[in-house]
């Protein structure tokens, strides 16, 4: 049982890592705490749910979800230019408003019920020798890991990736060294939106889908980003897996109702231990 829980936590953790990777990329260049982040992931999740409900293939939800997220990201970036000082606090409130809008939109379009997709191709079980797992969990893990590794390689070993990281770490210095900061910000936003678009349909296979499901994902993404620091694509996966395993163990031994409390406690503690927050070590604030 314990090994099975570890595996479940691991597979959940890779999904969390994927989710926080998108958050961390966009946060890195915009410095906006997007409180509507989880609700944006739900866009893809509801698309996938709607597709399967209407007999369309699940895989087709991915391109649609990515396209929708790119449009949403483009709109948000342009509205973001209108936000006035104090910029960070106002963007926090503006995205909270967006989160409430989306929650209610989902509620009126799809109702308040809990949904979980049971795809015939992803149910059943695989024998791993010591325990059984469902192909769905396996597929989520493989997809998430692949996306994270591709992003990590892109950010670490390509010239463009290096420029994006420079922009995240110190905008002014990057600008002085001849990095096209605006283009890199645009690219990071684009990449982040694409990752969120991929994560959306995966969400329905690992989690119950309901209009208020987004806030938990937002909190997890913020928590993992604070835990590992901004723009560190490699460390994100460790943070995600640690949280995933923690969640699967506490859900089994303590019960699911403690999860919200534990996330809250972890976030407050992280903020107190690292009061400089996400920018730790980058010499800002």
């Amino acid at each position: 049982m314990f090994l099975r829980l570890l595996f479940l936590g691991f597979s959940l953790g890779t999904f969390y890592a994927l989710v926080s990777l998108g958050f961390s990329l966009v946060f890195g260049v915009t410095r906006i705490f997007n409180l509507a982040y989880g609700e944006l992931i739900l866009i893809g999740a509801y698309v996938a749910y709607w597709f399967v409900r209407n007999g369309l293939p699940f895989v087709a939800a991915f391109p649609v979800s990515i396209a929708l997220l790119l449009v949403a990201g483009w709109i948000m970036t342009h509205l973001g230019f209108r936000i006035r000082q104090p910029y960070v606090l106002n963007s926090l409130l503006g995205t909270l408003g967006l989160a409430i809008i989306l929650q209610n939109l989902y509620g009126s379009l799809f109702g308040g019920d809990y949904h979980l997709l049971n795809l015939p191709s992803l149910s059943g079980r695989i024998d791993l020798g010591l325990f059984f797992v469902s192909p769905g969990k396996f597929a989520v893990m493989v997809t998430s890991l692949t996306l994270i590794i591709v992003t990590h390689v892109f950010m670490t070993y390509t010239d463009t990736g290096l420029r994006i990281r420079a922009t995240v770490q110190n905008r002014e210095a990057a600008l002085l060294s001849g990095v096209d900061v605006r283009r890199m910000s645009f690219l990071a936003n684009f990449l982040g939106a694409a990752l969120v678009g991929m994560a959306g349909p995966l969400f329905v296979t690992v989690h119950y889908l309901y209009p208020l499901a987004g806030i938990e994902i937002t909190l997890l993404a913020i928590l993992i980003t604070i835990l590992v620091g901004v723009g560190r694509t490699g460390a994100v996966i460790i943070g995600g897996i640690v949280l995933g395993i923690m969640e699967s163990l506490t859900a089994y031994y303590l019960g699911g109702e403690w999860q919200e409390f534990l996330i809250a406690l972890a976030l407050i503690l992280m903020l107190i231990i690292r009061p400089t927050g996400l920018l730790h070590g980058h010499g800002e604030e």
Partner: protein
Amino acid sequence: MKLPGPGYRLWLVLLFLAFLPIATGQDEYRVSVLSGAILLGLLGQAWSLMARCGLISLGHAAFFGIGAYGAAVSRTSGFPLIPSLAFGGALALIFSMTFVGLAGRLKGAYFALATLVLAAVPKAVVMNWRSVTGGSEGLFGLPSLGAITILGMEMDPARNRLIEYYMIFFAVFLLASVIWWLVHRSRFGMASSALRIDETAARSLGISPTRYKATAIMASALFTGIGGGLYAFQVRYMEPNYLFSLHFSAIPLVVAIFGGMSTTWGPLIGALILHTLDEFVFRRFFMTSHEILYGLTLTAAILLFPRGIFKAIMKMVGEERIAYR
């Protein structure tokens, strides 16, 4: 009493509000909507007390829910009305003190993020302390406010006349407003504004950020807790999943920002407009998703008029000074 300059119109508005329920023919539904708006105005004012120091709270549901449970539990165990309300407020105050002790030094967005998860803490307590709080099912059939005597007039909501509720809500609101108004004109108000605008400069003038911020958080928690108690006696049932939800964290800040968070009267004006709009229009046409109003208002206010609709209107009329009272 000398009327305060051009602001006397606002006192007239308040006088108008005090008699409005009588003018509307004491229609129960309309009076209850008005009571709700007054309560929301109180919550918005309490929220903006913190915002005035530059502290954005995304977790006022914590104080609200603690106040509601504190008042409900003490009332059911036989306490009179006003001590019950005070008890709820005091519990919220104590909770805010522990929060200040832990996270009072956080700044800006990091403070806001810490408040975002704040409501999960009392919620976990309420959910697991079943013998007192009723656990996740909540508490039902709370006693109503009960008969009390104000200025020799006996108020008895048990006679099913909501006007008395309204009077009690209005009395608490008026008390809070007068306190806020005095605070705003005092050294405290000046110091909090200074802290919001430039903390370093304020410190160099000898203003202690820790002290002023702690006071603002505690006062805000106290009044939000009392508001929670009033709410508990109005709806007469408690459900932890709803009381500690994002909804009650969001509405105070939405009305405050919409109305204008750095003014005394802005939150009230915001609450009156939004709550009546919600009850009379949105709840009718968008039954399951009427809260979309608050999201739309918040995002629109941040993008279009971050200083609040009150200031925007006053500027249009050419009397911007009133907005600062």
